[in-house]
């Protein structure tokens, strides 16, 4: 316990020192290398993701260095293992500051990113997280903070856009389960549907684990919506779908991204066929040539698929820094941030075109629609 207090005290003193000394200097070393930090859970429970980060960035940096480097300098990667622990993330952040990196790419989860972002901001280091989706991270007014993932609320925007534009439907029933995630997604979807001119004829919860959803579904059947959108978890989603079809409901059934798994199909049985799920695209389903190139390179080098979509988002974070440095001919993080905020337009990212708003949030819709085929597999939805 005492030891832990010392640790916390040490971190606090460290933060203080950094904020005193860090403000005056830019994080540029002026030597023959450009240092870029990679922060992530390289060990611990999420080691898979952290190693994906390191692999992706090392590979891309090696490719650039082989072609003569950036602004005539070699790129040097500085690794920081925060172990998925916010206390560790603060220490990693200070280490990055004293290593004089230009930018840090990471961390993985929102808690770690939050712990480190204040330190980077004070020290004047550009930070791009590939995977921290918590909305609050970009609400702090940090000018040097960006992310290549989309926010928690962009799935709702995608669902609303998909229902009204791609499917061309007008009336929607939204079912959630009162959990923070599902209710949030339902709220955002409802708001965006209303803005798109669609009518939400039903908005209400089920009780998770109740197993019998026929009462809610009978009510919905009577309202006869074009689409039913379920934002809860697959354990309820499968049953709900099965019971809806048993009751003779003909509406298109859609579900949120936690239903994108085999458990949903098992629970729904044959009723799963034709259900549309909104989800982040799987790496192999990204249609962009940059994505195909990256995945091919990654497989050739590491003899394995990228562990998840976040590996690709980390690669994009690196490519953005390279792009900004090249275009501004500078390694001043403030200039790079200014470029990303104001001049970057439709940058061809691995995860799709990248644009930023003034808060450092990515603009656009990164989600995709999957439909369950007759064999119970999720395939990308193609408009017929």
């Amino acid at each position, binding site marked *: 316990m005492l030891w832990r207090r010392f640790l916390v005290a040490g971190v606090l003193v460290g933060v203080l020192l950094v904020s005193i000394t860090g403000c005056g200097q830019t994080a540029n070393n002026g030597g023959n290398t450009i240092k870029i930090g990679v922060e992530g859970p390289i060990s611990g429970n999420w080691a898979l993701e952290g190693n994906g980060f390191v692999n992706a960035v090392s590979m891309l940096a090696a490719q650039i260095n082989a072609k003569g480097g950036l602004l005539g300098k070699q790129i040097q990667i500085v690794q920081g293992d925060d172990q998925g622990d916010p206390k560790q993330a603060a220490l990693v952040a200070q280490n990055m500051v004293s290593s004089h990196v230009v930018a840090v790419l990471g961390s993985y989860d929102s808690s770690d990113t939050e712990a480190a972002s204040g330190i980077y901001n004070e020290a004047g280091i550009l930070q791009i997280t590939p995977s921290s989706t918590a909305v609050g991270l970009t609400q702090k007014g940090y000018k040097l903070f960006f992310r290549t993932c989309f926010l928690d609320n962009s799935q709702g925007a995608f669902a609303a856009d998909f229902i009204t534009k791609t499917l061309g439907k007008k009336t929607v029933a939204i079912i959630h389960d009162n959990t923070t995630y599902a209710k949030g997604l339902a709220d955002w979807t409802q708001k965006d549907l209303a803005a798109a001119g669609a009518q939400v004829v039903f908005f209400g919860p089920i009780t998770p*684990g109740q197993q019998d959803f026929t*009462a809610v579904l009978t009510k919905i059947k*009577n309202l006869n919506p074009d689409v039913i959108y379920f934002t809860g978890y697959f354990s309820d989603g*499968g049953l709900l779908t099965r019971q809806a079809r048993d009751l003779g409901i003909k509406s298109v059934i859609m579900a949120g991204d936690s239903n994108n798994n085999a458990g949903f199909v*098992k629970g729904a049985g044959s009723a799963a066929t034709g259900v549309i799920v909104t989800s982040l695209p799987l790496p192999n389903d990204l249609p962009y040539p940059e994505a195909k190139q990256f995945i091919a390179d990654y497989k050739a080098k590491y003899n394995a698929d990228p562990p998840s979509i976040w590996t690709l988002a980390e690669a994009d974070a690196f490519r953005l820094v390279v792009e900004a440095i090249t275009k501004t001919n500078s390694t001043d993080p403030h200039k790079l941030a200014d470029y990303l905020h104001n001049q970057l337009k439709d940058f061809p990212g691995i995860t799709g075109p990248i644009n930023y708003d003034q808060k450092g949030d990515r603009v656009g819709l990164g989600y995709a629609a999957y439909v369950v085929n007759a064999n119970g597999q999720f395939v990308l939805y193609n408009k017929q």
Partner: protein
Amino acid sequence: MQQFLQQLINGLTMGSIYALVALGYTMVYGIMKLINFAHGDLFTVGSFMAFTLVASIGITRMVASPWIALVAIFILVACMVAALGVLLERIAYRPLRKSSRLAPLVSALGASTVLENALMLIYGSGYLVFPGKLIPDIQWSVGNVVFSLMGVLILVLSFVILVFIYILVQMTNFGAAMRACSLDHDAARLMGINVNRMIAHVFAIGSGLGAIAGVMVGMYYHQINFSMGFNYGLLAFTAAVLGGIGNIPGAMVGGLLLGLLQALVTGYISPSWQNAIAFLVLILILILRPTGLLGERVAEKV
């Protein structure tokens, strides 16, 4: 009107499952004045045993007719869970019979935790899906109202079991002995009734009924989970109190009423209010009739 009929069917189907589980609660309470919190988990054990019989052992392939397989599943599972119930009574409740009323209650909570965690360790914490269709997926629709063979079967089976138990308790010597025990253990013993054996019998019957409800839930909803007994246990307990705990027709009335309330509140008010209103009605009924709807027959409790 069609929506109303459909909600009635939904409510009756849900309610008859609550009623079956409530029946076990109420019988055990009647004879021991003990709320057997492990009852919901015995129900879950029933559905997992049926799952094992169907999915791992493949009972449907060993027997010629699916209907025989079905009856075999019900009987086998009911017997196994009845034995488990008796064992539970022997280990967790009988040693505490002479102690304060709180001790067996805590023991019941402990038994519930043990059963639940044992299921989780054996079967895993994920959802299990019942394979295939044991009961043909037959549906009828009248106008816009849909009802399924399985739903009708649940309703009929619950009612038949209720009538059977009612006759057993009210019209046989065995039932008379049971009622005597529920009134006064010592007086019953003086009359030459083996009270311990009577209590074991009641546990066997109550647990078996819970198991039958568990099998039905597995077959009807296809999806089971180690922790589902808590939810059903809570609702069934409510149903038992609603109808008057200790009263057998009361369990049926309470279960059906609770199911109907849930369906109609969802259909006509809002799904958010489903449980709030169901429990508000429970409170109102208990204020007006503290012994539950059919609770006045205190002398006949079993």
